[in-house]
């Protein structure tokens, strides 16, 4: 039977994710690199007590709408729905914007494990590569080394960092075929390509599905073996007309200042 990893809806793509699951969420922090529609499906499903693995904890759709994005939801949708119990993350808070996650963290309603960004990428890669752990120089002499085995190799001190094993990885790619081969667009590759294959089930949200054979084998970034499900974004999305929050307006002003400086 021909392999076909394409599923017909976002709800179907996340149907078997249970309460308490550990979920990797791809992307860098920008909404363009984020599996927006899969996160919306998780929000509709309403599952709770999730542990997430991601680079940031989301800025919220208002921030992105102000920048003109139609697909505007990021991890914040799960945070403000109260679906997150614990976040394993490199950048939990922002210097220009107090996101929902920071508010919940300060209120003691979510837990955080902060991981240096490169270590986070490598702990994810270690799972995909079947490694028992990696020795990294990052974090030696800092709060990050607490409770970790140290080892001196060739005169340099390293920390033993263990793989992060998730139940599901939700990622965003540009194009896919029915085997799950993926290509990305520009810097939206980021943690998406790193997380593919690092969970029991990898689900890819894509802009476009193409015929098998259409993707140049020389430029496929994620081979289909790492991908279990593919689901395509609608061309258009309905944008709600809720008023934008004052905080988002303020953050937009600061971001523009930074952008023009």
């Amino acid at each position, binding site marked *: 039977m021909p392999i076909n990893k394409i599923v017909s809806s976002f709800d179907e793509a996340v149907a078997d994710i249970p309460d308490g699951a550990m979920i990797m969420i791809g992307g860098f922090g920008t909404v363009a690199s984020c599996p927006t529609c899969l996160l919306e499906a998780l929000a509709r499903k309403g599952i709770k007590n999730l542990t997430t693995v991601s680079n940031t904890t989301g800025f919220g759709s208002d921030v992105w709408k102000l920048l003109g994005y139609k697909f505007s939801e990021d991890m914040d949708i799960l945070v403000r729905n109260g679906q997150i119990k614990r976040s394993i993350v490199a950048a939990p808070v922002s210097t220009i914007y107090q996101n929902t996650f920071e508010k919940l963290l300060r209120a003691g309603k979510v837990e955080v494990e902060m991981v240096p960004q490169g270590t986070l990428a490598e702990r994810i890669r270690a799972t995909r590569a079947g490694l028992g752990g990696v020795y990294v120089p990052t974090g030696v002499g800092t709060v990050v080394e607490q409770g970790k085995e140290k080892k001196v190799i060739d005169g340099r001190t390293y920390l033993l960092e263990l793989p992060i094993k998730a139940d599901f990885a939700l990622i965003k790619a540009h194009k896919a075929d029915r085997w799950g081969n993926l290509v990305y667009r520009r810097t939206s590759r*980021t943690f998406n390509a790193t997380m593919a294959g690092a969970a029991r089930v990898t689900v890819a949200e894509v802009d476009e599905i193409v015929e098998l054979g259409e993707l140049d084998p020389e430029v496929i970034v994620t081979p289909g073996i790492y991908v279990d499900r593919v689901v395509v974004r609608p061309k258009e999305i309905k944008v709600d007309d809720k008023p934008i929050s004052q905080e988002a307006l303020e953050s937009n002003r600061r971001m523009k200042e930074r952008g023009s400086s």
Partner: protein
Amino acid sequence: MEEKFRLDRQTMALRVAREFQDGDHVNLGIGIPVLASNYVPAGREVVFHSENGVLGFGEVHTAGEGDPDFVNAGGQPVSIIPGTSFFAHDESFSIVRGGHLDISVMGGLQVSEKGDLANWLVPERQIGTIGGAMDLAVGAKRLIIAMNHVTKDNQPRIVKKCTYQLTAVECVDLIVTDIAVIEVTKKGLVLKEVAPGWTPEEVQKLTEPKLIVAPDCRDVEL
């Protein structure tokens, strides 16, 4: 009495950029560092790296313009140039951690006389973000810190021992502040340049550890 000048953010970035050598691969942090990309000395080809998976990019667009799928680590849209390459996050940090970058430039909160760096947690905020700072601090061949010389309360940021949470130990090579350029050496901190109107003694008064004044210490060169 001679008037004292403090370098503003753009001028500090200009001074930082003078460190970029022809052919260098450089990562610039958010804030003053990222401004340095505008001041690469003429005739030098410098390739910029960004943590989110790109080597070689051009001009920064205003937020909301440009390609949403092509941004730098600050989330600012940037432009593609001949030679641009994209890669995944694990590859990006292999570049960072593997010692392939010639220079990393970051902001700082405190630097110790041994070159320890604290730059991810402002104690009053209690919650901070490590992001890619720890990897960049241990990974680059040369680490330059651009920061104001003192805090808002006029307390030294260059200290004997950092009191803030550390980013990495013995990692800083050069400190560019609004009043001085200081090199971290095995013998201690060497004052190499002062802002116009400042004497080495005046810089020392705002610096906790003892500075070694370079024999050729001069006005900051821009």
